[in-house]
């Protein structure tokens, strides 16, 4: 067990080594360094399983490896020094996330062998190197034991996504999408960094765990009714918590900073899978889970998280309905699903949120890789209207994709159903007590219908009906390296729900909510980072419909499932026909709004190009004319003055002599007057 923890740094560092190896020697290696990445992520995955087992057998681990900076700084709560360190925190949450991230990174590496290498692609060395760096950054983020380290790797994740989204840099669109992704998330990270600075300056520590953690400090500050930076402690905790949330909203693509994510589809599909399932986008929600104890101190921030989540879930789902590009549909589904996770965490459903994070990682990776397989089949065509009829030609892809779709739509018994149901259940029992959460719940519930609809619209358009293009009639064959990840993830999408069959457990009384026990530290973990500890902190009351948990459970599950099936059936009616037609045109002006993504891009582009840029140009003109004008003005005045003065210098010696004499006499007179000679 000790060994597992001692090896933990290797989990993080192996992909970094793969990055270095691929960057330096990739050109000389078979498959341009792919195997370095595959070996490294496979080893990381095995080590992560080892760590998971160690945590399961009652272990927990925190160790500081390296002091980044240390110095004197008087914090608001009276600490006089502060240390910024790099350390590893292994508890149930991070151990679980390690397994998810390394597994998906490994599968994406394998999948890339088929997806990237077959196309005569240049820059593969760069691709595999960046993939390694991406995995390294995310793993570093996952194991971070303090907020600053988390922020640093959070930023590195952003850098890697920039590099990978812009992988095809010779096109016009990919670099633009990469820039947008970095810039929009950077805007969120501005708030995050401010939050990190504020929390550090307030509590004198940034540790996640332990008696000296900022969570514990904040808790005692609230208990002692302290005043922090002119606010009472709880308000200040809310403010700083929301600042950190800014980074989450950016990275997890929540409203209003979600606009970068659909554009990010410009990157290779493998990268999309990695970004959406396990790394960049997951980082935001993971951060909320990581410092859930801090948010639990502030009901206001929880309510905001829940509301943002619920709204985003619905908002993104409606946009997914009208998209024609298979990857675009998946992109909006990602935004929507992360909205669910935020909703779950916001209503205090820590387990539900993490559960959905895990399930989503599997089925979204599956769907993206499946979409990647479809794109390979279709000779790099992404428009669903040009597909159709792939069901019989590519059965492996079809059935695995279908498994992912069923999970995404939340159809029993696929994994997505269990976690989504749990989120909605947590939301409704809280919403019955506090109406604001009921609104968030309602949005989340409504989104279930749209999710079911767009998911199956995608499935039917892609795989069913008659082939609508030559490529669809004669698909490109796919190899084992594509099928293997699909099958692995397909199985996981089906069975991952077993981890936490909460409704079954409640109905039958069986103790089968393993994930809840796991996150509650019942197998191992730190006492202050457990579900029940958070539950004690969260100040919410809950109510059941008709006072019965069972009835509420059944109603909630029935509503969710019914809507999901309803959406799926509606999609089937409209699109499961041999020659489907675009029914979206019937939506009229609503379609225009939806296809324009509610004009979210427009106003953000307007802010950048029509507001900030002209402002900058105005500033530049001001600088050139007024400020530099003054500088040049001083010089002009001096030059003009001297051009007048220089006329004194006639070049005639006699005049100089006269001037000297006149000056001498004047001086004599002045001295004389001052000296009193003439009195």
């Amino acid at each position, binding site marked *: 067990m000790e060994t597992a923890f001692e090896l933990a740094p290797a989990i993080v560092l192996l992909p970094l080594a793969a990055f270095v190896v691929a960057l330096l020697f990739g050109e000389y290696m078979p498959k341009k360094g792919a195997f370095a990445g595959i070996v490294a992520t496979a080893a990381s995955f095995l080590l992560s399983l080892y760590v998971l087992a160690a945590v399961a057998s009652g272990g927990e681990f925190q160790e500081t490896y*390296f*002091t*980044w*900076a*240390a*110095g*004197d*700084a*008087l*914090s*608001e709560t009276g600490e006089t020094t502060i240390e910024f360190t790099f350390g590893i925190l292994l508890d149930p949450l991070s151990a679980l996330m390690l397994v998810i991230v390394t597994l998906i990174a490994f599968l994406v590496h394998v999948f890339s062998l088929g997806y990237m290498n077959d196309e005569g692609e240049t820059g593969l060395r760069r691709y595999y190197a960046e993939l390694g760096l991406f995995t390294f950054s995310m793993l570093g983020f996952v194991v971070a034991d303090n907020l*600053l380290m988390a*922020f*640093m*790797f959070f*930023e*590195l994740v952003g*850098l890697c996504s920039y590099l990978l989204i*812009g992988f095809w*840099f*010779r*096109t*016009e669109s*990919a*670099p*633009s999408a*990469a*820039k947008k992704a*970095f*810039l929009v998330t*950077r*805007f969120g990270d*501005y708030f995050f*960094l*401010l939050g990190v*600075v*504020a929390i*550090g*300056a307030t509590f004198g520590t940034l540790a996640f765990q332990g008696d000296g953690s900022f969570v514990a400090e904040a808790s005692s500050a609230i208990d002692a009714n302290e005043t922090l*930076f002119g606010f009472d402690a709880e308000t200040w905790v809310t403010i700083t918590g929301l600042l950190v949330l800014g980074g989450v909203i950016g990275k997890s693509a929540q409203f209003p900073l979600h606009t970068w994510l659909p554009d990010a589809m410009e990157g290779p599909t493998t990268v999309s899978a990695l970004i959406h399932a396990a790394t960049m986008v997951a980082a935001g929600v993971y951060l909320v889970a990581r410092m859930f104890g801090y948010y639990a101190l502030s009901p206001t921030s929880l309510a905001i998280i829940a509301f943002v989540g619920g709204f985003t879930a619905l908002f993104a789902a409606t946009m997914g309905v009208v998209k024609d590009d298979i990857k675009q549909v998946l992109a909006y589904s990602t935004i929507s699903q992360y909205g669910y996770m935020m909703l779950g965490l916001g209503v205090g459903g820590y387990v539900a949120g993490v559960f959905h994070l895990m399930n989503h990682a599997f089925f979204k990776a599956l769907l993206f890789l499946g979409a990647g397989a479809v794109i390979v089949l279709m000779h790099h065509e992404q428009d669903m209207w040009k597909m159709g009829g792939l069901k019989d030609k590519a059965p492996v892809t079809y059935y695995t994709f279908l498994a992912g779709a069923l999970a995404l739509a939340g159809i029993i018994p696929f994994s997505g159903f269990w976690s989504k149901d749990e989120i909605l259940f947590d939301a409704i029992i809280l919403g019955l007590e506090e109406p604001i959460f009921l609104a968030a719940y309602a949005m989340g519930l409504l989104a279930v219908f749209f999710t079911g609809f767009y998911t199956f619209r995608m499935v039917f358009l892609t795989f069913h009906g008659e082939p609508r293009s030559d490529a669809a009639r004669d698909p490109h064959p796919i190899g084992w390296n594509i099928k293997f990840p699909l099958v692995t993830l397909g199985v996981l999408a089906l069975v991952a729900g077993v981890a936490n069959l909460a409704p079954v457990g409640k109905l039958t009384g069986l103790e089968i909510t393993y994930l809840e026990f796991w996150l509650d530290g019942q197998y191992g973990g730190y006492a202050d980072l457990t579900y029940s500890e958070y539950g004690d902190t969260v100040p919410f009351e809950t109510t059941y419909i008709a006072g019965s948990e069972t009835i509420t459970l059944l109603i909630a599950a029935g509503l969710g499932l019914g809507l999901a099936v309803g959406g799926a059936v509606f999609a089937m009616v409209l699109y499961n026909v041999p020659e489907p037609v675009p029914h979206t045109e019937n939506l009229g002006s609503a379609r225009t709004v939806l296809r324009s993504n509610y004009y979210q891009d427009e106003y953000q582009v307007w802010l*950048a190009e029509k507001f*900030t*840029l002209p*402002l*900058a*140009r105005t*500033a*530049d003109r001001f*600088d050139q004319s007024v*400020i*530099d004008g003054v*500088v040049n003005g001083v*010089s002009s005045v001096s030059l003009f003055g001297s051009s007048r003065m220089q006329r004194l210098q006639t070049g005639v010696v006699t005049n100089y002599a006269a001037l000297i004499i006149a000056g001498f006499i004047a001086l004599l007179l002045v001295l004389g007057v001052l000296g009193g000679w003439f009195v």
Partner: protein
Amino acid sequence: MMIETLLAVTFAGALLTFLAPNRIAGKLAFAISLIPAGLSLWLFTMFDGSGNALLEGGELAFENQITWISLGAYEISWYVGLDGISLPLVVLTTVLTTLAIVSSWTPIDMRESQFYGLVLFIEANLIGVFVALDFFMWFIFWEAVLIPMYLLIGVWGGPRRKYAAIKFFIYTNVASLVMFGAFMALVFSLDVTSFALPEVTQAMLNGGPESFAGVGGSTVASLVFIAMFLGFAVKVPVVPFHTWLPDAHVEAPTPASVLLAGVLLKMGTYALLRVNFTMFPDQVEAYAIPIAVIAVISVIYGAMLALAQTDLKRIVAYSSVSSMGYVILGLIAYTNFGVGGATFQMVSHGLISGLMFMAVGVIYNATHTRMVTDMSGMADKMPIAVGILIAGAFGYMGLPLMSGFAAEYFIFFGAFGSEVLEYAPLFTALAMFGIVIVAGYLLFAMQRTLFGPYRLETDYEVSRAPLHDVAPMFVLLGLIIALGVAPELILEMIFDAVDPILGGDA
């Protein structure tokens, strides 16, 4: 005597290079510059000082004081020494000069011996500025830096080089005059017998100035503080005294830009730290808000100006204004992390801006244009140079594990908890927004020039940059990452010298 050796070697090297034939001047200057670089690194490892050079209890490393001139009641001495603030800057100077020399091999093709001689001459004087502890000596070096830089811009510069060189020279010279006058007034109103900075500082802190020329003591202190601040502000530069900088940068040849942004700007902040923020703690407190306002304006306004530019060099030049605003913010925070972070930022910005100017220079060598609108897709043609440019740009944006992030983080952290500055969190939040704008303009510029389909408006064949153009950038990148991963390499030393300023123990 180590410092004297360092100075003597550099001056002698400058002279030798002047006399060398043009053909070998570049290589010779490089070989010579390795000596001060090695020496300064040796000083770095042998450093045994502690505390602040100007304050009581400061143990200087390599200290040496010899009376030079006696002027009536005052003594001028040759007084050198190093502490944790000046040593990193000396190392920065020598390393950056060496790299700048290598990066000039391609672009400089006339009067080479004079060019490299002047570069070494600048280096010697810059070292002098950072090691001098007597005001007179310091001032001589300070002014002597201007002359070679004036010549570098004026002789080897771009089309508007005369305007830029004269503007640079006059602007900074007028500022020096203001600063010199103020310092003389200070010395004459204090009970001191020399121009040695430690003596002046301690006299300031133990009693402060008496009335001078009919003006009361505290008023003298305030006036001197303001005048010195303005004098140094031009050099930094802070808004609104910044307009010489973009002109000078745009016209200067690449190595001159590297030195100008990398080290010359740091003279201003170094002097601010040494004089204003060490000698005048009361005035710092009194003028905290106006100075913080200036800092925030420098950051945001500088970044906005950079956003409007289409010349790559102008973008980097204006972003220097922005970055130096952070230094001022850190200084005015007057906390360990604030002032320490400001010092760290001096080094870090020296490295990063040096890297950026080199990278832009390499692209210019190949394309003969710096306009964003004139090119796109450069990543296709010169992948390595562009890769480094991207790395440098992310360093500028404050990417973690690069020195820029460390510096900015320390500054923000120090500023947020400032006791001296009222509304410190608000100022911090405002200044921090600069990190978004900096990402904006650098990403926009990169997208337009480096990515997309290849296109170039000028008639030049673009090929990969030669090794000696790329190698110095690799060295800088390595240093940037090293300092970003382990800021303690110099931070410990800096804190040791900064703590006494803020009343801590040496």
